[in-house]
């Protein structure tokens, strides 16, 4: 089966260069934004002492969370032994590394002293979940890198499975770590929940799979490679499960928060009268990001177009979710003196506003472009994708069985 599959680089030069140039423009924009922010300081951004993490963090956390989920297809292939996905696994590994690189680049370039990144790499506070994440991220690069190599080098194929299993466990820990960045903030009412980590894992599964399907479809479109319906349809079921699980955790998260009377304020803020945050939550995260994809995926007569549409909806919903979680969680003022109305020159007791500036928007988009560029260049230089991905090639036994 796998033996007669031919892998090919991208052949369509024109489209390749066009896409790369487009990414290049955004990467340059992001880097320019970084240099400007480093020169003038964060005073030129929309971030401040109240909204300390802004749009760059929304994008970075989204990319990092999706990175772990993008590994789904590879995990299903080698850990759960679903051979139909095997030819699609290398792209899955590639996408996850690219997304992680894009997200980390944004995080690092947004630091107040990104020139001191060497300090972050040499001095650790082992109590900090952030420091743990530095290890988790570098480990992820190494493991997925090795895994890719084992998958793509015929002689090494035998080792792909144990490495795939390691990668699978590693990325679950990684997403737990990313989710815990928020879970550890004891002071912030919006983040105090044990559901945070599992919720982030289910987010990562759905965002990653959605991005994977979109990337796969795009990569096939560049060269007009045939892509079978069976494989896309199988992934669709997986996707629907992940979206449903995410929705379930979101519901649990808010319901358990509502159980604690002290959290009513912040819950009321996000769910009822938080303006932009309430809108993004119900319209973006719930309607577009969860209900619409579930409908598109589960209603009878599903076709590829609907599946891809649902992927786009999931990604949009994902960004909305990150915005609500990260910015919304900071917009709600901390309550230092319960029972008192507080006011001060430092905005105690006030809901904090946030308007992202051009700079942080450019920086955030630069990270997305970087991830895309890595995928495009790798696809052009290395043989990541099979030449044909029609059902016959990917899973002869399956289609034979159906033909009989």
């Amino acid at each position: 089966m796998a033996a007669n599959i031919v892998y090919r680089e991208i052949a369509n030069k024109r489209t390749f260069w066009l896409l790369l140039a487009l990414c290049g423009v955004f990467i340059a924009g992001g880097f320019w934004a970084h240099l400007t922010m480093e020169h003038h300081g964060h005073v030129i951004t929309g971030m401040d002492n109240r909204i300390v993490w802004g749009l760059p963090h929304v994008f970075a956390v989204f990319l990092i969370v999706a990175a772990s989920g993008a590994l789904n297809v590879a995990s299903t292939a080698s850990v759960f032994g679903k051979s139909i996905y095997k030819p699609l696994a290398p792209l899955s590994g590639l996408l996850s590394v690219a997304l992680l690189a894009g997200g980390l680049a944004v995080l690092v370039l947004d630091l107040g002293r990104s020139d001191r990144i060497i300090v972050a790499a040499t001095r650790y506070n082992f109590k900090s979940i952030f420091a743990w994440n530095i290890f988790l991220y570098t480990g992820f690069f190494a493991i997925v890198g090795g895994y890719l190599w084992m998958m793509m080098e015929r002689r090494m194929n035998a080792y792909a499975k144990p490495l795939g299993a390691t990668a699978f466990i590693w990325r679950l820990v990684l997403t737990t770590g990313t989710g815990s960045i928020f879970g550890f903030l004891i002071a912030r009412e919006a983040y105090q929940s044990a559901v945070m980590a599992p919720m982030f894992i289910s987010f990562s599964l759905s965002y990653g799979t959605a991005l994977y399907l979109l990337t796969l479809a795009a990569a096939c479109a560049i060269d007009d490679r045939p892509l079978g319906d069976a494989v896309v349809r199988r992934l669709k079921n997986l996707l629907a499960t992940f979206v449903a699980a995410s929705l379930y955790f979101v519901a649990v998260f808010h319901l358990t928060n509502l159980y604690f009377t002290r959290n009513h304020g912040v819950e009321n803020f996000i769910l009822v009268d938080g303006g932009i945050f309430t809108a993004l939550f119900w319209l973006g995260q719930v309607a577009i990001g969860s209900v619409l994809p579930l409908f598109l995926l589960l209603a009878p007569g599903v076709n590829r177009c609907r599946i891809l549409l649902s992927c786009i909806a999931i990604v949009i919903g994902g960004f909305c979710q990150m915005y609500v979680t990260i910015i919304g969680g900071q917009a709600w003022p901390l309550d230092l003196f319960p029972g008192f109305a507080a006011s001060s020159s430092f905005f105690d007791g006030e809901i904090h506003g946030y308007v992202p500036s051009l700079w942080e928007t450019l920086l955030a988009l630069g990270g997305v472009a970087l991830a895309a560029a890595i995928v495009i260049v790798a696809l052009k230089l290395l043989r990541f994708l099979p030449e044909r991905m029609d059902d016959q090639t990917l899973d002869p036994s399956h289609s034979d069985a159906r033909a009989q």
Partner: protein
Amino acid sequence: MSEEQKTGRRAFIAASVGAAGFVALAPGVKLMDLAQARAPGESVSGKVRWGMLIDTTKCATGCSDCVAACATENAIEPGSGRPAQSSQWIRKIELKEKTGGHRELSLPMMCQHCANPPCVDVCPTGASFKRADGIVLVDRHICIGCRYCMMACPYQARSFVHEPLHHQNPEVPRGQGCVEACTFCVQRIDRGQGPACVEACGKSGHEAMLFGDLNDPGGEIAKRISTVASSQVRADLRLDPGVRYQGI
């Protein structure tokens, strides 16, 4: 300790005490208790835990002498950006009880120098740290400006320096891209003086702030804490802040 060393040390302490010019208000009342001044080259001691007791019944609404004194001592100027982008090491919070008699209170809020500081727990590089004498500081040499500590601090005590600075006090280095907060005027403590805000509060005549070693049973602050009812802000978080409030 040899006899000679002892005399030397005593002489030094006497000198620092003189330098500090204990803010003596009425006989027996002093706002700062600094019997623990150290000799040059001596490390801070873990036997000391600096703390503050703020009497909200004496703190006056509208008075911001402590804030002004902090700005002068630590050379904190308003930045060129939006107000939320300027540093505030200490701020006055005005409180109004939501129910009952709508009691009004005014109090200064700054880094509470927690004994279990979440800012230190989350800091990835170890730039946020607690000195042996309980003062929580940011080592700007290793702070990378990730702002995770600002997310973690329950008291919103920290500020991020949003732009280049030029008018620093030579004793208080501050600069773009790092996070900062109240240091209890560590540069003054190290030479045997107390925080500038406490001094200013005494001078204003309100005498709402008392500074000293919480661990010194004979000290004014420890005595007051053991006799009057005081509270820690957000005591439910069990961070054991070094700043205590009276009359909330």
